[in-house]
């Protein structure tokens, strides 16, 4: 059987196809079909010849198998230093072999590649920092995921995620109407406590265009309200676009390069349409990487930059606190020991380490660094889409041990995680290992700490 009904080489482009996938509980039928999926060797080799360029070629070629990347990989550490978890080994056994064999590979091997590229690598790119040649295995695995996607070897949830992006331009089924209505709803719900609070949609020439993660309108809309409150108190002239509001990219994790492009183009189109001075993205790591770091290349923007200057939420927070737009009430600073989770996707991809420390200097009295931290920080354990994939739950839970031990060593009971994915992984590690910690985004903490100008307070009646 060359192509399955659910598991095949064709990306999901219609609601019917998406529904069929969703109905297949845990991807049971999907993975069964995958066992019979043919590899189109000619197409695979054709794709490689077009896309496998000098950087990746050099990396695969010059790796001297020194093994320095081993200690850098949290999977290697979490799995009792199993040599099969050394990044160099992992990539040579997968992508390396595909290249050597000029794409002449079997179904079983492709599944092995899929298992390795999702359950043994979160594309956190930490190993690249330690390689004497600067070989970034995480980037190579991202590339491998793309090859696998083109052949239909992609975890069920990632196929769904990329389909969502293609159909809704969001990782979940949130329509433009749903989104705009949610903004109205949140303004309505919070205006009693914050008189004058609005969430302006499609305002032209605003100073800030704010974009989010689809999880927020879908399940946690108070996150949008909290962002609105902080912009409101800071006196920002801001807006959200009715279309092009979603920053995340499951397509990036799933290796669906075409959907990656479609997704970021929707955001860039919003920038062109509304002409904001700057764009700020919510507390999400991979969303920032996808739209701000990688996106311009996917969209073929010559500058390599987004159409307008783009900031991660932590950059905006640091600026607002530095310039006094937001003022922290000194008596409300966090007094207990608190630590901070650097998200791989913006600390190693954009160097936002200093910014985070600046924020902590304003809001915390007893800030405890994780060790290692900043660019050297370990992945939360759920990156690269891993949190979302049922098939690899067990491997993920083993990987979480590294973050658990890092947090325990700080002695802090509160972890600030300005990334949806890290937030989730840390929540899960508490559920699994029960170490007695709490975790939070910055927004709710800030709202409890800021000084609110008299005129913005509700009038007592």
């Amino acid at each position, binding site marked *: 059987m060359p192509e399955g009904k659910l598991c095949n080489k064709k990306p999901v482009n219609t609601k019917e196809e998406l529904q069929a996938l*969703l109905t297949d509980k845990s991807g049971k039928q999907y993975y069964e079909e995958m066992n019979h999926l043919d590899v189109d060797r000619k197409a695979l080799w054709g794709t490689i010849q077009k896309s496998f360029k000098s950087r990746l070629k050099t990396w695969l070629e010059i790796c001297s198998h020194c093994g320095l990347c081993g200690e850098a990989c949290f999977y290697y550490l979490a799995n009792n230093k199993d040599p099969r978890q050394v990044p160099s080994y992992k990539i040579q056994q997968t992508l390396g072999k595909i290249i050597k064999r000029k794409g002449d590979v079997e179904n079983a091997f492709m599944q092995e590649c899929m298992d390795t590229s999702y359950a043994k690598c979160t594309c956190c790119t930490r190993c690249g920092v330690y390689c004497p040649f600067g070989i970034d295995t995480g980037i190579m695995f991202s590339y491998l995921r793309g090859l696998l996607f083109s052949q239909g070897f992609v975890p069920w949830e990632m196929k769904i*995620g990329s389909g969502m992006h293609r159909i809704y331009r969001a990782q979940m089924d949130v329509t433009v109407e749903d989104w705009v209505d949610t903004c109205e709803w949140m303004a309505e719900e919070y205006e009693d406590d914050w008189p004058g609070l609005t969430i302006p949609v499609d305002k032209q020439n605003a100073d800030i265009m704010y974009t989010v993660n689809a*999880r927020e309108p879908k*399940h946690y*809309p108070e996150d949008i309200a909290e962002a609105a409150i902080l912009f409101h108190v800071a006196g920002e002239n801001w807006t959200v676009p009715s279309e092009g509001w979603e920053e995340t990219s499951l397509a990036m994790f799933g290796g669906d390069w075409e959907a990656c492009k479609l997704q970021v183009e929707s955001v860039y189109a919003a920038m062109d349409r509304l002409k904001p001075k700057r764009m700020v993205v919510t507390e999400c790591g991979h969303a920032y990487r996808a739209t701000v770091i990688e996106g311009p290349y996917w969209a073929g923007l010559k500058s390599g930059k987004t159409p307008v200057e783009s900031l991660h939420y932590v950059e905006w927070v640091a600026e607002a606190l530095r310039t006094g737009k937001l003022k922290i009430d000194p008596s409300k600073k966090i007094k207990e020991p608190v630590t901070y989770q650097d998200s791989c996707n913006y600390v190693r991809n954009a160097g936002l380490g200093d910014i985070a420390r600046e924020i902590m200097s304003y809001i915390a009295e007893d800030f405890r660094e994780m060790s290692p931290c900043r660019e050297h920080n370990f992945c939360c354990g759920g990156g690269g889409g891993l949190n979302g994939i049922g098939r690899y739950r067990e491997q993920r839970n083993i990987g979480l041990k590294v973050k658990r031990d890092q947090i325990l060593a700080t002695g802090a009971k509160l972890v600030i995680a300005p990334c*949806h994915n890290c937030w*989730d992984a840390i929540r*899960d590690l508490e559920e699994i290992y029960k170490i007695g910690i709490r975790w939070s985004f910055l927004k709710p903490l800030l709202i*409890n700490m800021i000084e609110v100008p008299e005129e913005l307070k509700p009038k007592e*009646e």
Partner: protein
Amino acid sequence: MFKKLLFATTASPTCDNAAKVAFDLELKWDAKLFVFHVLGVPTRGYSPFVTDIRTGETEQVDPDYIEWVIEEMKNTYGELLKDSENSVLETVVGTPHREILRKARKENVDMIVMGAHTREEDVGATRYRAIAGSTMQKVAKAARCPVVIISRPCTTCWKLFSNIVIGTDFSKPAEYAFRWAHKLAKTVGARLHIFHAFDISSGNYGQARGQNEIEEKIEEARKKIEKNYISKMKGYDNYSIEIWEGIPYVEILKFARERQADLIVMAHHTREIDPKLAELGSTVEQVVLRASCPVASVNHPDKVADLDI
């Protein structure tokens, strides 16, 4: 007064008392009843897993699972559904308070009916207590319509209510609560007990309040009630005014018990939404957990503004 009702349920015995009231309201007021269960809390990221609220188990949701939950609900409410004429069962995945509020807003319901956990022997009681306590708080704070919370058996049909207590602290939301309570009292012909508790605990610690001060405050409150409320009742004379001093939730409970209240109406407008702090601090929560009758929380004018009173 009640055309559309939302019964937010855990679909467990915890909500049995509330269920009876909800279905009774549907029948007696010819209302449409949405029986609504939020079955799981999703993760923050994009995980396919949800945590089932009742069992705490991790589940992967698909249409079959949702269908199964609906079947379970049908079994749970089998007896009540037999007589029901206009009810819809529905279940969704999400954070409970958020989905309840979303549904209430979408359907523009006139009232939300919820249960409140009181029985330790219930399955998952601790988990439920933690989730439901904060769910109740958050729904009561943000809902645009009245929210009635039922924690103990309520055998009196709403149309036969004879004593309704409205507890006021003279805030704006309390005025909405009063308007709604008055409307209900008038509609069903109940006596409206307008009650205020002068909070003697709110002063500086260690500083006892003098009897004179307390009496002054009580007199002040009486004047306020006459000016703000009685004047608006347009001749409805089936009411009483009472002002006691003490800790508000204790006093209102004592008063409700003394008058054999069928319903307590209050505003729940604490600005404190951190469930850990609000749970112990909020008068409404204390009243809900201890009252032997249903407690209605009204905070917004939406469903009372154009009530003809």
